[in-house]
């Protein structure tokens, strides 16, 4: 069935309004879209590693979650959901469970790229029937914008401050989507908030209803850490895609597929310029840094095209 935004939006919200995430934050629309991909009759067990999403969505006595919810320790939402899924599957096999539950773990980039990587890797390797979603906002935003291995090169954060000597973070962003694809699990996807959430919704549906482990890496901008105007959330996501900084693709059964090829690939400046964390790159003396970033994006994009047989 073709994607119909109106129909999809009419499905009941499973992460309701009233939570306390910031205006202009990417994480809530990511979670809402993913949970909308559940069949109406199915339930979910959601896990969240410590992070903004966790801390802002269930404040006693209120919760925004309409599903069972586990806030794990920072480093092990993958393992925590593994345990729930393994027990459920055993009970189901013995006929002690009737309803259908799906298991979804959410972690930020800190809880996924860094401290939670071992737990994620283990969960995927063991083959649990679960989805791990990284809402990647490219730094530890909950503790006040510290760099992570998901932070892009030259971004200004409080532990990679830009100054007179160093222009922000010195290392490139870890390619976690490719790392997870190398686990040879049934489904891996990279996406963000674009075109009426179609790409995100369809990938969530596939991830949830593909048997076995699935991983989704979803770019989820943060207005505080990236320093953009809150209404620009969707525009920033679109620019990430159109500059090929964050290509939309999936790896299904080992086959790499590009989901979107911009008609005109935009220069990286278009994406960086509206974000305060890259402001220093637009000083005259930093022109070569922009060139370096563009070169890196071009190389990675060409590489992705080859993997997806699009070159």
């Amino acid at each position, binding site marked *: 069935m073709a994607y119909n935004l109106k129909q999809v939006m009419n499905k009941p919200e499973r992460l309701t309004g009233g939570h306390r995430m910031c205006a202009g934050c990417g994480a809530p629309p990511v979670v809402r879209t993913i949970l909308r991909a559940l069949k109406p009759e199915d339930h979910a067990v959601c896990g969240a590693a410590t992070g903004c999403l966790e801390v802002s969505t269930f404040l006693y006595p209120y919760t925004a979650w309409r599903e069972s919810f586990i806030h794990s*320790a920072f480093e092990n939402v993958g393992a925590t959901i593994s345990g729930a899924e393994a027990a459920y599957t055993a009970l189901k096999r013995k006929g002690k469970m009737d309803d259908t539950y799906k298991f979804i773990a959410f972690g930020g980039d800190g809880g996924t790229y860094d401290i939670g990587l071992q737990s994620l890797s283990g969960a995927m390797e063991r083959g649990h029937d679960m989805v791990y979603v990284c809402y990647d906002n490219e730094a530890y935003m909950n503790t*006040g914008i*510290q760099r992570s291995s998901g932070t892009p090169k030259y971004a200004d954060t409080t532990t990679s401050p830009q100054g007179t000597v160093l222009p922000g973070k010195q290392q490139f962003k870890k390619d976690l989507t490719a790392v997870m694809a190398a686990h040879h699990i049934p489904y891996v996807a990279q996406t963000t908030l674009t075109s009426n959430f179609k790409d995100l919704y369809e990938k969530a549906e596939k991830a949830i209803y593909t048997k076995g482990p699935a991983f989704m890496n979803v770019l989820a901008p943060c207005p505080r850490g990236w320093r953009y105007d809150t209404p620009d959330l969707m525009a920033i996501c679109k620019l990430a895609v159109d500059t090929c900084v964050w290509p939309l693709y999936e790896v299904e059964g080992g086959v790499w597929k590009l989901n979107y090829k911009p008609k005109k690939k935009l220069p990286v400046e278009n994406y960086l310029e509206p974000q305060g964390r890259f402001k220093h790159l637009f000083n005259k003396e930093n022109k070569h840094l922009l060139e370096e970033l563009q070169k890196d994006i071009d190389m990675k994009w060409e590489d992705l095209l080859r993997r997806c047989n699009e070159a």
Partner: protein
Amino acid sequence: MKRKHRLMQGNEACVEGAIAAGMKFYAGYPITPSTEIAEISAEKLPLVGGKFIQMEDEIAGMAAIIGASLTGLKSMTATSGPGFSLKQENIGYAAIAEIPCVIVNVQRGGPSTGLPTSPAQGDVMQARWGTHGDHPIIALTPSSVRETFDLTVRAFNLTEKYRVPVILLMDEVIGHMREKVELPDPSELTIIDRKRPTCSSEDYLPFMPEADLVPPMADFCTGYRYHVTGLIHDETGFPSNSYQVADQLIRRLMDKIEMHKEDIITWEEENTEDAEILLLAYGCTARAAKAAVKALRSKGVKVGFFRPITIWPFPEERVRELAEKVKTIVVPEMNLGQLVLEVERLCNNVTKVERVNKINGEIIYPEEIIRKVEEVL
């Protein structure tokens, strides 16, 4: 000399103290309420030729300072409850391998994720026994911003001198509170560096203690090739299954503290000469206790104040002496009774011990302590 007053946070004072003590390496991970220590270290360490690295998790932060310390750099990491739990295995490693390092724990409410932005004093026992096995440890606990500076310097000095991991046990109030402080001139500070071998690399036995029970420590990459392990090891650094070696090593590690406890243990006391009731408190709670003493004294109540600054090893001898003089010791702390267990052990059959406990993320107010004192009068 012109003095400069500054308004600063405890967490900032910690970094200032560390740099004054010669910290050249910081590895850590963001966690409330200690993150400012990482942030300020990221900014300041490069300015003094030091190195800051943010690691992928808490365990890695602890591991990296062990590695850096072995190359001869004074190293520190900072964290809070959940991160302190994760670091424990490597704290034990630093204890058995005698790696100088400072671990700051800005305590928050626990267990688990607990109350990330609220103060607590629930890690007192974990600071002592958080890692498995008998092991030496030193823990210092400041109760003001200026003292955080001083104790950070002292933490480095003690870890360098005795090759024992030193824990700076702060709490969220002390970490985030801002006070006007006057920092000492670097020339006024005593800075201690670890003993390094004076023998040739051929004759070097990395774990052969001197009379003070501390072996001189060679820096990696300076020609002294040796092995470091978390296994029980002999003076050469090689693992051993010998009962005798195991017994000797663990006893020596523990005796390092016992032998030097007079140098290690410090405390503060006020109005103890004629005291009938003693308030024993530490960290931010000591501030409330001090206020309570003042209020009670103005009403003519003979109450004294005792604050362990070195919390581990605990100032046993002095507390035992005081216990014989006073009728009651009141121990307020932001947990359900941890350090009070030490006090009760020491006061057994000598003095009454009363508790004031709070675990809801709020500080203990002077009035709550006063109420308890009036109850026991």
